[in-house]
């Protein structure tokens, strides 16, 4: 079913061509999950920014489909790991297997050694397994029994969580949440989209409509381009001031970390590509601020789950009005 990818030349794309490529990817995602254009763009942003994505949503709104569609659209090798209470680190990392003929141990890579890994219901796995995954996410490699195994490039983890049903789960610690660049929730589709789904779903699975429009090489090129975009000193200062504002805010227990600052910079750089710009504006920073930071700030109030994310988003939006943007 996969068509040959219309791959851009890997030689130094311009912001304009980068935008076209990203729009192509987002358009394919839109085919799989209809009516979620903004989220589709953010997913593409996260991929190009080189971050990992956390999807928080109730079951059945298309989280898995979205991840699979992303893999397919970009031609990435894909693995889906259903995290359960008995999942062990070796189940995802791989293991040393003894070969009787050669009398040696040989490493058999686990499902993590794919370009796109979907960690479904991440919070159901025990902390040991969670941290094994998160370590791999941070390092880009897996260390096992003294040997190091590099993960493929690009390497992206899309993790999902159910923010409502917490029974039998091991909620991710804040330090682990910090490793996800963006957090999204899809939400229920609009009524007309849902009705259309009902009418068409029976015929073909949505993923079939998704075509491969990019390649791992192109994603790598886009990443390089995004990482090199100009971030003016005043904009960097703006990001830092925003971080300080979260740290000093009365309703926030723990504000944005340095990793959060770096992630926001990377996400804002990629956001600038959507406007085909080769530099970052304060507007780019604000556009990705909530998905980038809402899951990282720890509130003083006792609310949890969706309510906590909403409140955090609200506080962050308030901060964007209070912290003056550079003019």
């Amino acid at each position: 079913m996969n068509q040959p990818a219309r791959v851009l030349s890997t030689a130094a794309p311009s912001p304009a061509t980068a935008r076209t490529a990203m729009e192509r990817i987002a358009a394919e995602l839109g085919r799989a999950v209809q009516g979620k254009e903004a989220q589709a763009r953010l997913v593409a942003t996260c991929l190009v920014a080189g971050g990992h994505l956390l999807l928080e949503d109730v079951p059945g709104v298309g989280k898995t489909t979205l991840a699979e569609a992303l893999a397919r659209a970009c031609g990435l090798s894909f693995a889906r790991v259903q995290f359960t209470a008995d999942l062990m680190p070796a189940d995802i990392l791989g293991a040393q297997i003894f070969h009787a003929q050669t009398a040696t141990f040989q490493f058999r890579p686990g499902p993590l050694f794919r370009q796109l890994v979907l960690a479904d219901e991440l919070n159901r796995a025990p902390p040991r397994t969670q941290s094994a995954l998160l370590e791999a996410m941070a390092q880009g490699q897996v260390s096992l029994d003294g040997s190091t195994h590099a993960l493929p490039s690009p390497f992206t983890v899309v993790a999902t969580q159910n923010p409502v049903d917490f029974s039998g789960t091991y909620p991710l610690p804040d330090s682990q949440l910090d490793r996800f660049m963006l957090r999204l929730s899809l939400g229920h589709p609009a009524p007309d989209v849902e009705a259309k789904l009902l009418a068409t779903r029976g015929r073909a699975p949505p993923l079939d409509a998704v075509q491969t429009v990019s390649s791992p090489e192109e994603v790598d090129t886009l990443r390089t381009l995004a990482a090199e975009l100009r971030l003016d000193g005043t904009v960097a200062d703006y990001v830092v001031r925003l971080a300080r504002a979260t740290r000093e805010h009365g309703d926030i227990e723990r504000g944005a970390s340095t990793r959060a600052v770096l992630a926001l910079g990377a996400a804002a750089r990629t956001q600038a590509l959507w406007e085909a710009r080769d530099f970052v504006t304060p507007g780019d920073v604000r556009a990705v601020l909530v998905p980038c930071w809402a899951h990282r700030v720890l509130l003083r109030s006792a609310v949890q789950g969706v309510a906590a994310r909403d409140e955090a988003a609200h506080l962050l939006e308030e901060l964007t009005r209070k912290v003056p943007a550079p003019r």
Partner: protein
Amino acid sequence: MTKGARLRLVLRDVASGCAFASMAVSGQLPLWTLGLYGVALVAALAGKRLFARRAKLTALLLLGVAAVLAVNVTSGALNLVVAACAFAGLISAHRLLSAPDAATDGQVHLSGLLMVAGGAALSGELVYGLFLVAFGVLASVAMALGVVEAAVPEGEPVPVRAVLRPLATGVTFAVAGAMAFFILFPRLNWNMTGPRAAPGLGPATTGFSNTVRLGGAGTIKDNPRIVLRATLSPDPGVDALNSYWVGRTYDIFDGLEWTNAGGVRREREPLLTLRPGGDNLIHQRVELLPAYGGRTLIALETPSRLGNAVANGSTGSRRTFLQELAGGEARFLEAGLSYAYEAYSLPPGGSGDTFRRLPSVEQDALLALPEALDPRVSQTAARVLNGEREPLAAAQKLAAWLQREHAYTLELSGEREDPLADFLFERKAGHCEHFATALTLMLRTQGIRARLATGFFGGERVNEGYILRAGDAHAWTHVLVPERGFVTVDATPPAHRTSQGSRLLQRLLGLYEALESRWRNSVVDYSFRDQVDVARALVRPPKGSENTERSRLPPPRAWGAALLAGMVVYAAWRLVTRLAGRPRPHEATRFVDLVEAILLPARLFRAEGETLEDLDARLAREGHPLAPALAPVTRRYLEARFGGRPLRQGEAEQLIRALQRAVTAHVRLEAQRARAAASEPRARAS
């Protein structure tokens, strides 16, 4: 016009009026310029901007005025500085009547500055100072209101109340700063530029001429201006001193005028000894104030030694030598606005002069009579004396007769051919000079030597010393008594010897003169030397302090001053580094400010926390008609600000012009639509 704008214009006009008044108080501006300016100011305050439509044409009027002034200057009728000041005033008047826009405001304030500068050259008096401060405050407030007004969107009220408080603080700081600057900044004296008006309230009123002429009205008696201050030691401690303060004497009378025999006696002395004194001399430290206006030293009768004189001029104070003239007059060699000196006088009772020691010309003059003396004078004197030959008793008898038979009056009109006969036999009324002249001459007809003395009578206690007013000027008679010298006999009725002004006026004038002298000492005559004194006073203990113990360490005052100076320097350094450390607004930031100003008429404002980028995105989302025009501007702004691609030469202007055109077209279209919408229902109703 909004309330704020009206307030600003009134403040501006009144400020200009104050600036003009600061020149006018010198009393040197031609009367017609006062009239023209006054009319213009009243019209402007009434809101009648008469020249608003014809600014260029009416400027020709100024050319005419300039021509008139130029003619006056070339003909010598007007000083060049005065003419320049008058012209500045009329320029201001023209600007007051023009259309009140930003440029006109600036010109009004600028001409105001010119006028206060002119006022400083013309007078620089206390009243000038008051007008200067008023101008500074009013003009600052008016300008600040103008700035605020420009920043407030069209149609919205100017927050006058909210603005006035920080404004008042700012103005206070500015005035305090100006004072500190004045006190501490090394200064140049430039007081010599213009013709300076006499200090105080117009020209000085007394002063000594070389003659005393009888006749005319004596208006001087009700003048309460203070001319002299003196501290006496030993201090008599009485409230009314009622003493004679002599300036000079006269010995030759020609029927109309008193003059002196002989000329300059001593040319240039630091200290004049008029006559030897004993142990019981009265010491006086005297200050002659600007209202005095003469150069003759005044001392209590009878002066013995005079000296230690200082003349205070517009360029500072300096020691001056003294000159002795005929009639026992001592004069300052150099002219000043005010003087200070010391004098020693003999106690009352006689001058101790003996006839033999007088110069021979004076000896002869003491009995001389005018050729055309009315014979009745001699007859009357003989009749009144009735054989009394003792000089003092005779003089007292004649004085008593004069006081009994003649009235005191200042209402004397017209010149008389023989004022003495007129006083004695016709009008039987006159002022002190008439009484004194009559007594002197009547004594001389009887062979008794006498002369006329002029000066002041009185002495009103103020603080620790005594003051004399211009109205205390007086004339009396010196009778030569053997063994005692000249003895004072006063023929004027006692009630009319001192000044006759009203009590309240005297008090008010006293207050003004005190303020005025303070202003003169600490502002007008404040020189580099005074600055050094201030600096010295900061580090050295005050004069006459008890602590005479010598120490190698600097006194505590020096430490305090150094600490204070250090704190001031530190605060200034902090301020400067803060200002210097503040990043200069980016060129693109100034550009975006301009863009936002252009968008105001289209009622496009940034919401709280919104940037131009957000505004642009919002307009694009809403499909606003101005969005296409704004997009390229926003893009270039973002590139220039954050993308490292600065605006090219002239690019900003080009973008601004394009946006301006779009906004203007949009606003016009909106207005048309609004009018159409408004007229539609009316059309239907009819």
